[in-house]
């Protein structure tokens, strides 16, 4: 069995998850990466997506995160996320609000660069929600 490391997911409002994990898949802004024990010091921004945590013992937790950083070091992994919601709790109204916020950001963008970034975020959000909400629910 793989060795565990300390994993923490913090949002501004609370400590969402703090557990011993064996493997965590993080949606980095330049591509997903998988963190195992003893990762070299590494820091990345996070794009909207789902973090998949394999907790020691085999249970898998899936959490939607938006906006923030992942800070990996040999000591463990910390994700600072502006928004963190367990996938099971992602309800239609939450999704609608997130998408609406993103759409407003696109509409409010003052420069092309800001608009491009906002549009990218919106597209990523849509893709994530399309993937996490099974049809017929």
């Amino acid at each position, binding site marked *: 069995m793989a060795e565990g490391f300390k994993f923490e997911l913090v949002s501004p409002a609370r400590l969402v998850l703090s557990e011993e994990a064996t493997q965590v898949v993080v949606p980095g802004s330049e591509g997903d990466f998988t963190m195992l024990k003893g990762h070299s*010091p590494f820091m*990345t921004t996070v794009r909207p997506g789902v973090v998949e945590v394999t907790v020691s013992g085999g249970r898998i937790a899936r959490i939607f995160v938006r906006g923030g950083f992942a*800070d990996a070091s040999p000591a463990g992994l910390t994700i600072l996320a*502006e928004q963190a919601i367990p996938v099971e709790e992602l309800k239609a109204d939450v999704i609608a609000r997130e998408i609406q916020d993103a759409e407003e950001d696109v509409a409010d963008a003052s420069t092309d660069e800001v608009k491009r970034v906002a549009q990218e975020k919106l597209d990523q959000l849509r893709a994530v929600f399309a993937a996490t909400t099974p049809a017929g629910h």
Partner: protein
Amino acid sequence: MPSLKDLRNRIASVKATQKITKAMQMVAAAKLRRAQQAAEAARPFAERMASVLANLAGAYEGRADAPVLLAGNGRSDVHLLVVCTAERGLCGAFNSSIARLARDTAHRLIAEGKEVKILCVGRKGADQLRRLFADKIVEVIEFKAVRQLTFDHADGVGRKIRAMFEAGEFDVATLFFSRFKSVIQQVPTAHQLIPAQVPTGAVSTVGGAIYECEPGEEEILADLLPRNLSTQVFRALLENAASEQGARMSAMDSATRNAGEMIKKLTTTYNRSRQAMITKELIEIISGADAV
């Protein structure tokens, strides 16, 4: 000498007041517990943020190309005071002590020949500062209808500050709020936002190991600094919320006690004058009977 009826009315009214203050104290106690939990729950995020920031910012120390949010724009002519207070009164010296700290700072800065602008978060502070600095208040942000503060509220304030900074409306920003120490002690605090104060004592988790960054260090810092600003505001608002309830609780507690004392005093006076009245009537009857 007030009549017996007057005294009775006074006692009844003080009793009613006491009931209200007592109820307010209990409500504040319940809210305080929630606010304290929220403030404590927000602590890990702010702490991690500080240590990540310290890790990254160390590399920029003394360099000219450091981001402006971190190092400032090199001037300190125009100061922005962000004054966070409560939306409601009846909480002891809570609002006035924050306003006083902001006022003293403003006076000092003006005496030094700097320009001062004030951004008020919370109505009560704005009311107090308006008397002196009406022309200096640029905006008042109210959270009157807000029941539970979320990060989004703080982010809105953070965005506002950032937009003003980018538009060159000020050079240095300072945040005023009340730090929650205990139920009976709240410390009015000034905290510099821009240029960012990098915590020096923050423990680096890797002991100086070189971080690999993705995208670049600069991009991460550019993303992190605005977030850090909002986090600071969020933290200040939560500390404020806890302080406000703590201050209200102790203020209402002493008000309840005062009312109790007053009732006691009034009741003594009432009983005494009632007794005097009875004695007087008895004397009148007896002396009337004697005369017959």
